[in-house]
């Protein structure tokens, strides 16, 4: 008797499981079964961050990345192309904000950490991370002028990075491969440091024609100083 009861229980459990697992949703598809498509929301998020960056909205771009991937520092060296793109956005946003990201409005302070760049140590940490992230990307995409331009731009702001920046950017400029107006702006500053005013003027002209506005190319005090 006890065996029968146990059997009945088992059958009941099995039937319940079958009932629960075979959802009626297939009928909603007209009897056909379609796999559910899962879309990774980060794809859209990274695309939006790239767009914000291209429009000069560095805080919005960096904020989007840090919000989506607050642990992005721990992902360094990831082979996931999406993570690499996010890293690139953050790296460029950081160096164009000179290591200081005013993200308090975008990201909770708890996860913001050193990205704020409030102290000199945080600022240096951010700039070094930016350069390291761009170097990592360049290692995977050898000789990509767009990454080389960004790296040159970041290096130009790093203590002791100017010489390498100059070599990178001059090499690109000689082949008409400087990929951003900001790259020409950094080159103008580097040439100015060397007393090459004609070269500086030329680079600024390229910056202005490429930017479509002189605003991006105006010298700021923290650049290449």
């Amino acid at each position, binding site marked *: 008797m006890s065996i029968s009861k146990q059997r009945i229980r088992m059958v009941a459990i099995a039937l319940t499981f079958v009932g629960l697992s075979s959802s009626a949703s297939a009928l909603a598809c007209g009897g056909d079964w379609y796999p559910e*498509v899962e*879309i990774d929301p980060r794809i859209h998020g990274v*695309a939006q961050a*790239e767009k914000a960056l*291209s429009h000069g909205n560095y805080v919005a771009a960096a904020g989007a990345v840090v919000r989506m991937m607050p642990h992005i520092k721990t992902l360094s060296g990831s082979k996931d*192309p*999406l993570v*690499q*793109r996010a890293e690139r956005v953050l790296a460029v946003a950081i160096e164009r904000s000179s290591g200081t990201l005013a993200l308090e409005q975008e990201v909770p302070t708890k996860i913001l950490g050193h990205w704020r760049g409030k102290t000199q140590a945080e600022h240096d940490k951010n700039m070094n991370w930016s350069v390291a992230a761009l170097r990592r990307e360049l290692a995977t995409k050898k*000789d*990509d*002028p*767009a990454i080389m*331009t960004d790296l040159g731009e970041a290096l130009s702001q790093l203590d002791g990075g100017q010489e390498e920046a100059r070599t990178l950017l001059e090499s690109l400029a000689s*082949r*008409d*491969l*400087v*990929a*951003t*107006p900001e790259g020409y702006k950094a080159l103008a500053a580097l040439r100015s440091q060397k007393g090459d005013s004609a070269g500086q003027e030329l680079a600024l002209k*390229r910056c*202005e*024609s*490429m*930017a*479509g506005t002189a605003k991006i190319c105006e010298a700021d005090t923290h650049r290449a100083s």
Partner: protein
Amino acid sequence: MGTRAWVRVLLLLLAGVCVACSRRAPRVEEWGRPESVSEPAVAPSLVEPVAAIDALTGDASRGRELVARFECNRCHDGSGLAAVPLEKNCFSCHEQIATGKFKVSAEALARFRPHILDARDAPSLTAIGARLERTWIRDYLLSPRDLRPKLMPTMPRLALDAEQASDIAAYLAARDRALGTPLRAGNALHGRELMEHKACSSCHSFSGVPAFASGTAPPADSDVSRSAALAPDLRFTRERFRRDRLSAWLLDPKAVKPDTRMPNFGLSGDEANDIAAYILTAELAPAPSETFTRLPVLARRVSYDEVNTKVFSRTCHHCHSDPESSGGDGGPGNTGGFGFAPRGVSFSSHASILAGYLDERGQRRSLFEPVAGAPRLIAALLARQDEANQKYSQAVRGMPLGLPPLSPEDVQLVETWVAEGKPM
């Protein structure tokens, strides 16, 4: 008999069955489809010996290797090569987007759909040897031209020389090649009347002859309209189609090419000959040449957003994209394909365009360095205009490759953007 003897008998029987099965099973060709699929159309007695094909110029076995190298199977069925995966197939993605089966969000699907409706079909190469002239195949490979007025032309000018084109033509012409019968003389005038009566012009254009009275265009985006789009302009038939097979084709198209969408009109032998006579002998007015007027650069500012929206994202991005942001493989113009080496050109962003391309030695060069008196990008757009008139530049390949040339206004827009310093 003892147990051992029975076991032996059983094993022998099993072995016999296995051998028989292996002989009977449809053998999959080295690269392609089961034999039963590729050869139903041609009666065995009509198949021309392979030796007869080999005697012609061109190496068919080398041609087969080239067909693989140039990835003809990315767009065409019936090449004799295995089907390519979805992400490599030129038209399957478009078809899935059009029918809503592509695995992206509904918003993305709605965004993609308007851009792909023109490119869902490519003619199949099934039984090509039973239909087309080998010399025509060779010439077409060297200088592709628009044969189907209702289909967006997508055949690229591949990076091949005359010898390679001959080899590919030899391979394709040998596929399903069938012996023909000499075409008997027909009544061309009656042939034209029959074409009017059968409404051939519903699907086929016949440029250069007086317009046909009959022929109603099928409803847009219907199956019939897609079939009609694959129908070639009949002015090319006299060089393109094997004369000794034209009558057989008109009598029963599916017997020649099983996957054709051309219907069987139930013609008699005489009627088929009459239609063939008209198609092959009708007087043709000269084909109009494509005219292109290079417009002066605009006096207003052209931003990257404008030129990208109107030209780059609509055209260049198809073959020159960033695999990380666009998915797929980046296209033949970036990561390579269709026999082209990877050129590393991406039209995915302002910066990626300015990052240039890889030359033959793998060195990065600007897309704006001067070539043939113009920045390379502009020179390529202008070269494509010349290619539409069968003039080919050795210095630069016309772009957009395999797509119609840009309009004068679009070229003007790009040229203005370049002249202004490629502003963002």
